[in-house]
């Protein structure tokens, strides 16, 4: 029999707020985390703005033993460690035990390993100084770096997996953790993702001409999902984590429960029928959403809020069409929909986990966060979704079920369905 899975803790390091109270305030007030980056002007990037968390590196001393902190250079690992350990303590657990927790695992993702750390290795090797690299480089350039740090700090003995699925990474990590608990393989899974966009990855996206370039002087207006003036996405950095637990395990210890994950799916459109390396096959997206709904036996009409992928490219229109087809809802009947990317940009692999935390907070506190920069919604999107479902200010409203999806390069899709927790539901 499949197990029920609940969210008992969250940790978040978002460009517009670090920690749950600051992030919740930012969500409710439409606070932007996007800033002008002088270095990007110097590098002649078309897009010169980015979402960067205002993170004090020294804060990691509160999370890691001093010896571990001493040699840590990877910002992505630093972000991930903080988010993951915050979710763990938010769930009521303490850090620092000498036991192996065989019933607990971790799925944490990222899109690339830290290229700043890799660059240092390249420079040393090219200068014939490889012997000066020391013992701490490999662990920070391996794709499983964050998982290794987190699992080691907390003593996890169950599955410890590092996933990578481009912009679908974060939600996919949560789906995987959810599946392990649902299937009885683990009692607790710490899931999430972390992204540090350095100038090299940023430059590669910039060269694809898919980044926002017309608002370098108005950074907070540069990310404009679903608007007529959308002109590309704004890369962002950050991390978030969700502590998932077997419902009975959580109830037994009287844990605070944020939400239940009632369905989750991840698939690929196979890069066929309109799907390519960079564009989704609509049939794949629709099947992914419908599979997640069917798993939770959720009526599409019960979705109160869609937390979209919606990056502010031409793909927004297609996404809205796909949601409409998948749910069989249009116009007046369409649910509320929002995109956190309007405030923080697109945090790539971290987008899914940060947005999942936002979804869980909107469920818990009964509100819909605003879509900022949506004074001029795309007419086609208005026609399908209905003008009333694209809020530009926070709406206080009972929210019982949220659908959260992300779509990534490689034609990868993931969808999660979060519901308010009701033990007898």
């Amino acid at each position, binding site marked *: 029999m499949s197990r029920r899975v609940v969210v008992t803790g969250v940790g978040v390091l978002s460009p517009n707020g670090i920690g749950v109270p600051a992030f919740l305030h930012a969500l409710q007030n439409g606070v932007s985390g996007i800033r002008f980056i002088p270095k990007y002007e110097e590098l002649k990037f078309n897009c010169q703005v980015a979402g960067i968390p205002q993170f004090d590196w020294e804060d990691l001393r509160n999370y890691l*033993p*001093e*010896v571990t902190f*001493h*040699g840590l250079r990877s910002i992505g690992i630093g972000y991930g460690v903080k988010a993951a350990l915050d979710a763990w303590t938010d769930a009521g657990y303490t850090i620092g035990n000498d036991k192996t927790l065989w019933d607990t695992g971790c799925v944490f993702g990222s899109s690339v390993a830290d290229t700043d750390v890799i660059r240092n290795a390249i420079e040393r090797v090219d200068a014939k100084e490889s*012997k*000066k690299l*020391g*013992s*701490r480089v490999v662990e920070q350039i391996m794709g499983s770096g964050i998982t290794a740090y987190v699992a080691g700090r907390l003593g996890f003995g169950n599955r410890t997996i590092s996933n990578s699925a481009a912009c679908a990474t974060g939600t996919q990590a949560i789906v995987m953790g959810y599946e392990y608990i649902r299937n009885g393989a683990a009692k607790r899974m710490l899931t999430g993702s972390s992204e540090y966009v350095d100038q090299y990855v940023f430059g590669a996206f910039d060269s694809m001409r898919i980044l926002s370039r017309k608002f370098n002087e108005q950074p907070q207006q540069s990310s404009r999902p679903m608007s007529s003036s959308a002109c590309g996405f704004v890369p962002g950095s950050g991390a978030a984590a969700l502590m998932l637990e077997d419902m009975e395990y959580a109830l037994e210890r009287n844990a605070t429960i944020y939400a239940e994950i009632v369905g989750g799916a991840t698939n690929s459109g196979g890069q066929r029928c309109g799907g390519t390396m960079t564009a989704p096959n609509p049939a794949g997206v629709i099947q992914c959403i419908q599979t997640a709904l069917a798993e939770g036996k959720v009526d599409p009409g019960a979705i109160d809020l869609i937390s979209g992928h919606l990056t502010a490219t031409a793909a927004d229109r297609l996404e809205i069409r796909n949601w409409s087809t998948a749910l069989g809802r249009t116009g007046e009947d369409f649910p509320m929909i929002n995109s956190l990317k309007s405030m923080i940009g697109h945090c790539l692999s971290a987008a899914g986990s940060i947005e999942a935390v936002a979804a869980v907070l909107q469920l818990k506190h009964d509100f819909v966060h605003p879509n900022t920069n949506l004074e001029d919604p795309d007419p086609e999107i208005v026609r399908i979704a209905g003008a009333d479902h694209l809020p530009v200010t926070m709406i206080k409203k009972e929210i019982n079920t949220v659908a959260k999806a992300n779509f990534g390069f490689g034609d990868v899709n993931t969808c999660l369905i979060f519901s308010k927790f009701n033990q007898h539901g």
Partner: protein
Amino acid sequence: MDRQAILDELKKVLVPYTENKELLGGITEDTDLLKDLKINSANLVDIIIDAESKYNIEIDFDSAEKMITVRNCIDVIAEKMNA
């Protein structure tokens, strides 16, 4: 640089790799880096790199393998500095 001076500098090299700083207080030439200071063996490489930089010397593989106790470390460092 005499042995005491090398030891004083060596202690500074060991600080970031010794989780329990109190252990450094009782350091003598007999102190074993791994057993007594509880240093992670993977970090011996980093200690050697830091020592090379601090004393402006080069420590070859064979010498590095001898650096088990503080006495061994001082022997190697003194030898390389006088080379």
